[in-house]
């Protein structure tokens, strides 16, 4: 548990690797880092040396998308336009592989060092992603501490999951009827919490759009909706369809904690395990009850990130 807490309180973590800011020589620790991607934003905020991270994307400050919105307000926020980024004179730009290629290309043509990172698709990749960003930022030690903390937290939570004979069947259901497949981060959170992914029965192992009719036909034991954005959209109006209200809806929704491979995933997983435990006593199909294993005491409270 201590490891997890350390991981989530990065400001207290070892600070030894912080590079002295100064004229940036090639290969030196980058003194000024700008992040343009919601997920690299959060990891960079967790491992950066004081003053090293200059700006993060505006999405990082949006509580509906970012698990670290409050922290992000301490940084300059950027919309990621090349001109704006260039004027910040960064030594390193962190971007996602899906960041506008035009922007990334232009920044590289302007002579900036841009490192791109693919989205994390599985729980096992989180540690590697944190270490890779740490290596790019010259913050290997802080990254190692954070990655080990996340891995230990995941191991502890997995040990707490009651693995009964019957795994309740759950379906993720987001705007437009999008459902996360088994090979996505949200799908892995679902599996780690002890659920079977009902969407896989409909042939959507990789995720995809699940028509409302098919969702009803699958009759899952739990439907996990996505958290709503403000303003109206037809995409999210689907989530208030009366027929969906007749299905067993999860009290927790997929929110900002589910988006990126960061320590926030631990909080998402713990929340879902709690839902699983509340279902566990009586699976909806009634064929078998899971063995009543008490949840690991004190686990969930310790997960709240600073």
């Amino acid at each position: 548990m201590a490891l997890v807490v350390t991981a989530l309180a990065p400001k207290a973590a070892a600070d030894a690797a912080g590079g002295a800011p100064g004229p940036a020589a090639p290969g030196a620790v980058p003194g000024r880092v700008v992040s343009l991607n919601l997920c690299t934003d959060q990891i960079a905020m967790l491992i950066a040396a004081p003053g090293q991270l200059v700006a993060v994307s505006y999405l990082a400050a949006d509580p509906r998308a970012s698990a670290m919105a409050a922290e992000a307000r301490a940084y300059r926020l950027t919309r990621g336009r090349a001109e704006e980024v260039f004027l910040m004179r960064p030594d390193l730009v962190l971007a996602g592989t899906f960041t506008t290629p035009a922007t990334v290309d232009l920044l590289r043509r302007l002579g900036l060092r841009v490192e791109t990172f693919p989205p994390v698709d599985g729980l096992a990749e989180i540690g590697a992603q944190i270490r890779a960003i740490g290596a790019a930022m010259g913050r290997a030690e802080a990254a190692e501490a954070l990655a080990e903390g996340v891995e230990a937290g995941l191991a502890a939570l997995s040990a707490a999951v009651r693995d009964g004979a019957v795994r309740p069947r759950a379906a993720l259901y987001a705007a437009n009827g999008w459902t996360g497949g088994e090979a996505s981060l949200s799908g892995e959170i679902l599996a780690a919490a002890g659920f079977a992914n009902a969407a896989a029965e409909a042939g959507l192992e990789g995720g995809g759009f699940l028509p409302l009719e098919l969702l009803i036909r699958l009759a899952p034991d739990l439907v996990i909706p996505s958290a709503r954005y403000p303003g109206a959209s037809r995409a999210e109006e689907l989530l208030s369809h009366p027929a969906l209200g007749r299905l067993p809806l999860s009290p927790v929704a997929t929110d900002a904690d589910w988006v990126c491979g960061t320590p926030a995933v631990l909080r998402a997983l713990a929340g879902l395990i709690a839902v699983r435990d509340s279902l566990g006593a009586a699976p909806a199909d009634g064929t078998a009850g899971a063995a009543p294993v008490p949840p690991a005491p004190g686990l969930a409270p310790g997960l709240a990130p600073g």
Partner: protein
Amino acid sequence: MRGAGSAAAPAALVLLTAVTLAGFAASLLVGPAGLGLGESLRALVAGGPPGDAVTLIMREVRLPRALLGLMIGAGLGLAGAALQGFLRNPLAEPGLIGTSAAAALGAVIALQTGLAALHPAALPALALAGAAVSVGLILGLAGPRGGAFALILAGIAVSALAGALTALVLNLSPNPFAAAEIVFWTMGSLADRSWLHVALAAPMILAGGAVLTAQARALDALTLGEDAAAALGVNLPRLRLVLVLATAAVVGGATAVAGAIGFVGLVVPHLLRGIAGGRPGALLPLAALGGAALLLFADVAVRLIAPDRDLKLGVLTALLGAPFFLHLIWRMRGGRA
């Protein structure tokens, strides 16, 4: 000629009713869940135990969608026939003259300002307001005696303005999904509509449709010319106001829940005009049935062509309708030369 057409009308009504019912049944029976015919009908009529998946699909997903297809198709066919009768212009159609686009703008404003969340009726009400402004504008710009091209040009201007404002409002929305839905508002779809949407659209479409149907005699009289119609007791300014409001109600109600679906009101009256013997009054019920049948089958087709893509209804109706539109323009040009 006219007599033959009138005699054909009752038979055509029966035939169109049968086609519409077939479309309604197809709309209920086709869907991604791939339910059997027997279990579908049993679940729809008798229902199953509480929480039964098939009953839920039939009654909460497919029935409202089929009813909306029926009402919206009938409403659009009727509105097209009535406008064409009043303007004596076969190109007058809610989609072409910008009424649907303006109704969509009203609906988008209601949704994005939060008015629709305050009171659900704000959604169809603002769509009606948008439609009414545009129909009024078009009649003012092109006028009852304005030529076909003045009408179409005014329609292009209104459509472009309403479409641009719709895109602007959606792009400024705090909801990241809203901007991607510009195509829904310009092309229309009935996917995942529920009883909530039936309740929003039905009162306006039914009321507007009833008022339009009641203008049959006045529209017939108008074929003799405005003076003759006035001599027969038709109050032209009043007829114009009634038509503006009733068309706006039908198009506003339809567009508020299904987006702008074009060409239904163009194709259907064009195909059926001969059967009605050139009488706009007799054309009204035929156009309503034809519109319903067209939209129901189009909505079945989008489910068959691209089951998991939400292909927009307007794509199909435009593919069908645009050639008719070109044909009409060609014929008018030929007539003039």
